[in-house]
């Protein structure tokens, strides 16, 4: 067996251990606990609120648009954090580069704003 495949053995062992541990605890507790089934116990858990309607109901498309805009800021943050920690090393070059990057991403936000996406009707 090559070194490459051998290192996956660790993954396999950990997986088996996880199944074993969880299985043991759940199995043991099911043996000792009392069973009193009630219909309320089988309702989907939705942050403590009783679920209304079906699971396939449509969500407002606006949430999707806001999620997309969030991704834009997320990507920005992912690149800005490591850059900010080493800003001194990168010097002026890094600063200019980051401003170009932010400018291009900002165009997306400006676009969304001008096209009226940010308005909640």
């Amino acid at each position: 067996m090559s070194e490459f495949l051998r290192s996956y053995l660790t993954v396999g062992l950990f997986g088996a251990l996880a199944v074993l541990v969880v299985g043991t605890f759940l199995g043991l507790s099911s043996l000792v606990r009392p069973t009193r089934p009630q219909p309320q116990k089988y309702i989907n858990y939705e942050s403590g609120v009783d679920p209304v309607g079906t699971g396939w109901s449509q969500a407002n498309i606006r949430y999707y648009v806001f999620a997309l805009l969030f991704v834009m800021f997320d990507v920005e943050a992912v690149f800005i954090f490591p850059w900010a920690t080493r800003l001194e090393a990168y010097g002026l070059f890094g600063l200019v580069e980051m401003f170009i990057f932010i400018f291009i991403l900002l165009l997306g936000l400006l676009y969304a704003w001008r096209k009226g996406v940010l308005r909640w009707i």
Partner: protein
Amino acid sequence: MTSTVTAFAQVADFARPPIDWHAVAPELVMLSVGALMIIIDIVKLERAKPYAAALSGLGFLAPLVPIATLAIDGVASEPRVMFGGAYVIDGYSLVLKALFLIVGYLVVLLATNYVGEGDYWETEFYNLLSASVLGMMVMASARDLITIFVALELLSIPAYLLAAWRKRDLKSNEAGLKYYLMGVFASSIMLYGMSLVFGVTGSTLLTEIGATLDDGIGSEPAVTLGIIFVIVGFAFKVSGFPFHTWAPDTYEGAPTPVTAFLAVASKAAGFVALMNLVVIGFVEREEVYQPVIFFIAAGSMFAGNFMALRQDNIVRLMAYSGVAQAGFLLAPLVVVGEGPEVAATAVSSIVTYLVIYAAMNLGVFAVILAVARKTKSGEISSYGGLFDYAPALAVLMTLFLASLGGLPPLGGWYAKFGIFRSLLEPGTGWGYTLAVIAAVNTVIAFGYYGKIASRMWFDAVPDDDRTRIVVPAALATALVLCIAGTIVSGVYPGAVTHFTDVELLAFR
């Protein structure tokens, strides 16, 4: 702990990577044009609409200026290498960048009236088109797995959106969704393959991968699987058999200018990536990629041609014809392992084919768009009697179809000749077998190209509506450019091979 310290020490010695601004000027110009178009859209909103197409057309022509200056500067003989070999600007990448830009320009010409007259978002359409072309330009220079992947996503994601552009049309939604799902599926398979190749060779640079595989390292099954997965991923992109099933549905549902773009530019970008990967990276692992590419190429030719014979819709027919043409384009990659000269012939024959294919295929789509302006239909039967009321379009369509079939003296003939030459030159069994299969398929293809031609020339007009077809100026320009390219490349192939006689070399 010590490794962390050294890692920080390395960053502390950060030196600005040398950037050859002249060499990346085409991409930078394209990016600036895209940004400019967004800014104009932000500032002017609806008032920007009338200028969108013209501006985007100019935007596709502008990067040709730095490409020309780079060519004059002698990049073909002295390639510019950047980022440790991850980004190479040589004759090969320059000619492909020019091809993508010109195809982009022609697609703008095809789309101007279609998008302008339909109830579609205009500025966004052209923006996404230029983003996709920017991805293709990066792909032409990419010599690194990560760069190739980023370029692929940059060119694909706008294309998914463009395919679903007619958003109130269910067929277009289906087209976009199918293209997206298949594309993402292919991307994930390819990414898995790339990770396996990287895991074994320890580098993402294609030259390093090539050198490592050459040293005999990497005979593990993992690298075999990696190479196959990467090739399969791109086989989706170029709609090669048996991964072609998305193509007919997507082509039929997408707006016709977008179909033309997918059929020519997007497909060409897939071939560019395959050439980079196979000719530089995997070239020493002939025993792995040869049977895979042989199977995909032969299967594409047969499946594409036989399915095309049965089609009633012209766009679906062109989709299957594109699958068959993809088989032709893949064929020379089977023999690239026979030596550097053979690889050079194969690469230049594929690039030549891509250039000529762009001219003739875009020409067909231009005629389809022009005819659909009157008939509002994509059925082949609606082409009945086209010669009666639109003789010029019928003649042009016949020329384009004859060229696709490979009749001399049109461009398609020379393109096919190049493929046959590169298959027969090394004198191997794989090459001979594939050449025979290609020859058989050339004959089959005349069946359906001839079917359309006979409808136009011999059938009666189906609804007796003989109103003349008014071809808008933009579409007419595209038709003239395409027919000029198709005829010139056949009568005087030197005009094309002067540019496409390029080599794909490994640089460090």
